[in-house]
């Protein structure tokens, strides 16, 4: 157990950038340089924690003792680091992409955008590094609020109603369900610290434990479990970089990560197993997977289809965790990373298409492969990753998930997994097919390559490449996931 201020610095790195961003509002180049610098520092700080954690240690920092048993404290363990690594590395990519996207579309209020982006990142890392439920809740709410201005960036009627929906689900669920659940937990146990063996064991009645679990699962609505999912498609009105980072990586993953923490840190595998609650959650997740995939099939808006896809993919993670088998959990944790890289690619591609052509719907994109070959190539790789086909990272996580199903002895869930993968393929591959193999609908597209600003299409290529790389070299994510799971199962 190490005490170090590094986790705090990692959290604050992007927050500290905010004043500079505001100060430099008149000079966009300097402003975005600050963003980059902060992102770089953040990644370095997070990465610097890697050796210690890989060595089996944990890094701790207590900020303030606000509540007895639940201080404002940060602790870096393998799960957290995995998540933080994903988010902070993707921030750099997204920042670059944002610049391309925002400048390409000449969006208004860019300063505000970058500010809240930075705040949101801080909150994400905060959630990743939280040492206890309370700290996590704090950053969770901070993230909800910081993303609101991003979601409603366009400040028009549609953004308004989406923002309303977003807040209603996210804040409503967290205040009405997660907060009381947390307080009840605290009331019963006197602590909120995550512990590998759980803190609830023996403190609550089985019924109570079940109720609490569902309060948590639905309370952290960012995880997008049906029926608290509908904010996610609505939030797609946001500028694409926001959708990309926040709704493929930060926000939704924070939701899932929170559930991960609840399952591993608060309940503990043994308690859940003993009460047989894991399977219940797993089936809820399975239901979500199938339903979301089916809905995604019927969507024409590219971003909306991606959004429903995200809902389904998130539930993979929840499913993996809920299996409570070592392989399944490893898969679930790994899927956080793998899906992030895949999905962000897809979102960025969608954004790039929008920047270059102004098209949003799939039906309008027939033949776009001629126009934007690189973008669509990245899109293909991303799709493969999300579907879970080699040679992409997505395959590895899905593999582990499948193994986990077997390990948990539930063939039915395995079937669900496979069916849903088929559905994934069914809603992604036609897009690629349409883009490359159908004649362009617009005459201008036939002229040849024109991919718009480089800042918009290079980042997806980078992340797509990452997806590919992760298939061959899934370290350090795999290692971290395995370590974390090993700790859980008393390894």
């Amino acid at each position, binding site marked *: 157990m190490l005490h170090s201020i590094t986790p705090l610095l990692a959290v604050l790195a992007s927050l500290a950038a905010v004043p500079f961003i505001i100060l430099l509002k008149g000079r966009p180049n300097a402003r975005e340089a600050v963003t980059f610098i902060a992102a770089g520092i953040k990644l370095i700080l997070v990465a610097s924690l890697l050796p210690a954690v890989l060595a089996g240690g944990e890094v701790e920092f207590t900020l303030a003792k606000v509540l007895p048993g639940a201080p404002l404290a940060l602790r870096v363990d393998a799960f957290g680091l995995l998540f933080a690594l994903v988010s902070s590395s993707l921030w750099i990519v997204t920042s670059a992409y944002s610049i391309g996207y925002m400048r390409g579309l000449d969006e208004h209020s860019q300063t505000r955008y970058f500010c809240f982006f930075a705040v949101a990142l801080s909150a994400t890392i905060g959630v990743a590094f939280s040492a206890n439920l309370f700290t996590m809740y704090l950053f969770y709410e901070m993230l909800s609020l910081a993303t609101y201005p991003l979601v409603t960036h366009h*400040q028009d009627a549609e953004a308004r109603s989406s923002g309303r929906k977003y807040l209603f689900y996210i804040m409503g669920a967290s205040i*009405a369900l997660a907060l009381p659940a947390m307080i009840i937990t*605290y009331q019963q146990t006197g602590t909120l610290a995550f512990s590998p063996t759980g803190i609830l064991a023996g403190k609550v009645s089985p019924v109570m434990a079940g109720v609490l679990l569902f309060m948590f699962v639905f309370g952290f609505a960012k995880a997008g479990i049906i029926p608290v999912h509908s904010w996610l498609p609505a939030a797609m009105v946001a500028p694409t970089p926001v959708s990309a980072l926040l709704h493929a990586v930060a926000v939704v993953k924070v939701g899932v990560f929170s559930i991960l923490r609840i399952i591993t840190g608060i309940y503990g595998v043994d308690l859940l197993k003993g009460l047989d609650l894991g399977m219940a959650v797993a089936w809820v997740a399975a239901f979500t997977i199938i339903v979301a995939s089916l809905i995604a099939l019927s969507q024409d808006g590219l971003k909306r289809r991606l959004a429903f896809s995200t809902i389904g993919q998130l539930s993979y993670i929840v499913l993996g965790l809920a299996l409570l088998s070592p392989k399944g959990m490893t898969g679930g944790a790994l899927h956080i990373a793998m899906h992030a890289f895949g999905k962000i690619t897809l979102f960025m591609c969608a954004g790039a298409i929008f920047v270059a052509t102004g098209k949003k719907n799939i039906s309008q994109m027939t033949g776009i492969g001629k126009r934007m070959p690189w973008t669509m190539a990245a899109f293909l790789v991303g799709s493969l990753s999300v579907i879970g086909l080699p040679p992409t990272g997505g395959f590895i996580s899905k593999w582990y998930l499948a193994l986990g199903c077997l390990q948990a002895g539930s063939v039915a869930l395995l079937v669900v997994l496979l069916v849903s993968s088929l559905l994934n393929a069914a809603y992604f591959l036609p897009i690629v097919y349409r883009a490359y193999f159908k004649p362009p609908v617009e005459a201008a597209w036939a002229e040849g390559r024109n991919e718009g600003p480089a800042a918009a299409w290079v980042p997806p290529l980078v992340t797509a490449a990452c997806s590919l790389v992760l298939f061959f070299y899934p370290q350090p994510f795999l290692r971290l996931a395995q370590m974390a799971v090993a700790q859980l199962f008393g390894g």
Partner: protein
Amino acid sequence: MSEQYPALIVITPLLAALLVSAAGWLRPRLCFPLALAGLGAAAAAATGLLVQVLATGPVTYRLGGWEPPWGIAYYVDNLNAVVAALVAWVALFNLVASYRAVMTDYPEKIGPYYTLYVLAVTGMLGMVVTGDAFNLYVLLEITSLTGYALIGLGGGRAPLASLNYLFLGTIGASFYLLGVGYLYIVTGSLNMADLAKLLTPLYGSLALLAAFAITLVGLWMKMAFFPLHAWLPNAYGFAPAPTASLLAPLMTKVMVYVMIRIMISVFTVEFVLQEVLVGQLVVWLAVAAMVAGALFALGQRDLKRMLAYIVVAEVGYMVGGAWLGNRLGMTGAVLHLINDAVMTFCVFLAAGCIYQKTRGTSFEDLRGLFKKMPWTMAALAAGAMAIIGVPPTGGFFSKWYLIRGGLEAGHWGFVGALLFSSLINVVLFFRVFEIAFFEPSGGDDSHGGHGGHEEHGGAVALAEAPLSMLLPLMAAALGLIALGLATGPLVQKLILPIIPAGLG
């Protein structure tokens, strides 16, 4: 000098008020500096007192040098000290913020305005530190009177609202006085500590119960507890902005403090818990207050009135917490008292800033404010977060303790109402933010003054409130977060020592 802190805390503002009044007749220019000096000294004394109390334990101060049951005595423990410091500092910050508003709105009446302002603070500080039941009444009246005048100064409906406040406030204060009379008739004493001793053998007496009931009803009227809240929304909604941001945060809080003081120091918790069988009923009333306050607030189309109804709900939090009958609830109530003062101050001051620029606080006036007044709106957002109960602002932690108190008492209604009212608060504030964020500022209508609203890209002329208002506002917003982070020590060092052992 340090043994004189309790006296200084009250007499410096009193003397300052008199000097301000004199200056108002002779040299109006001097009013503000004098008031600032007086309140500054009071704030310093209050802080000194807090430090002293924390270091050496409760302080007793004998006014006129007479022994307590015969003379008037101050009794200052952690609770008083912290509330006094809170009152003094909030008042000081608000004073700074009020400078421009008073200058623009009442340039001819600076002297009387600040006189009453400082007197109101004097009264509140006195109420907080006094240990004599009757002295409290006098100070209560001084605060109320200044409050009536300061509220009645506003235009439009303000005088009527103020008169209604005066009626209900007088009934409330008189009920309190009557309750003290009942205590006096059965004991013959007025000193709180002495009363607590003398009352013990009388538990079960009908007169005592009636005294308790009347006192409480009186105080509830003054603090606008739910069925008796009718005066508050209009009074605070129509009051001049600097007045609203002085009275709304402090007046109700001080009254809640008095209620807690009466409950734990005069009647003792044993009496409250065992003899008074309506504890549950009071908590249900608090539940009703929270729900009703929230729902009424939903119906408002004016920021200040909406905030006023939120104050009604907040009073419900505190009263309910205090009456839950356990340590956690009481801790939550006291903690919320502290936090609520700061957060209400923050939001009302933000409303004042908005009024200063737009000359109105109805929802139509808020359009496009995020562009025009980003800092003010940021502070308003911080205050809103605290009221909603988002960590790490202080509001979260007090709600935390309150909910825990409710859970421990098994009072699910209370917990539910707390959560419900938080949710409504989300709705309330985001409705405001939506208007300020989405709707373009009305450049075409008369009171904008800052024309040229560009839909996208362009910069709308910044029309931020003056710095003298903005700095206190920022201080309040940061104070909210600081309070949240300091919750641990606050509870451990300040609040827990004063929670009587009798509470379960």
